């Protein structure tokens, strides 16, 4: 069964460093998403991406964040200068079509720890 994969599973970084989280969405999916879950809190939407453009983003997704689809398979989330409060699980998701009614398939997540 096709699945979304994410690497690394755990990333530890120093405050102020740049990190890139990587995702491989399901191959025939066209819409890609990043969510995050700070420990003990809700899963929060960060950004959605389609046709090499951001289609929607939340208030959390500020100038420190960027997304890219550098090739036909990878989808990345970059945090330019990490802060302690960026420590969270980051989930990538993908879907075949647009709209919240289209099932979004989630990856296993990357745990980001900022020291």
């Amino acid at each position, binding site marked *: 069964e096709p699945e979304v994969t994410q690497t690394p599973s755990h990333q530890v970084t120093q405050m102020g460093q740049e990190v890139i989280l990587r995702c491989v969405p399901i191959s025939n999916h066209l819409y890609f998403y990043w969510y995050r879950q700070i420990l003990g809190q*809700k*899963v929060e939407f960060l950004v959605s991406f389609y046709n090499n453009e951001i*289609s*929607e983003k939340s208030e959390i997704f500020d100038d420190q964040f960027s997304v890219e689809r550098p090739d036909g398979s990878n989808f990345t989330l970059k945090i330019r200068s990490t802060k302690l409060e960026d420590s969270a699980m980051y989930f990538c998701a993908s879907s075949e079509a647009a709209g919240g*009614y289209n*099932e979004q398939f989630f990856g296993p*997540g990357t745990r980001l720890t900022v020291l």
Partner: protein
Amino acid sequence: DQQVKQNSPSLSVQEGRISILNCDYTNSMFDYFLWYKKYPAEGPTFLISISSIKDKNEDGRFTVFLNKSAKHLSLHIVPSQPGDSAVYFCAASHNAGNMLTFGGGTRLMVKP
């Protein structure tokens, strides 16, 4: 931001009995609701969904009920099995956008 709320952080049920997980929302623009299940060290997995034009959707042991006037939905699992033990998230969306707004989750424990 409390647009989607799950007021019960945990629920314990005996195997074979019914599990009822509840979810409330405040945003009238939501027109699609989903339940996701999450095991430790895994991402959320889609379970079942319902459109706002319906009041019930059933899939095997899982049924979701929607009460639009009360802005309330519930997930029923009958009969509950130990393998159902997980965190269940309610999520909502509106057709105009792709983002899912999640509730805080309810940890279900099904005891053998």
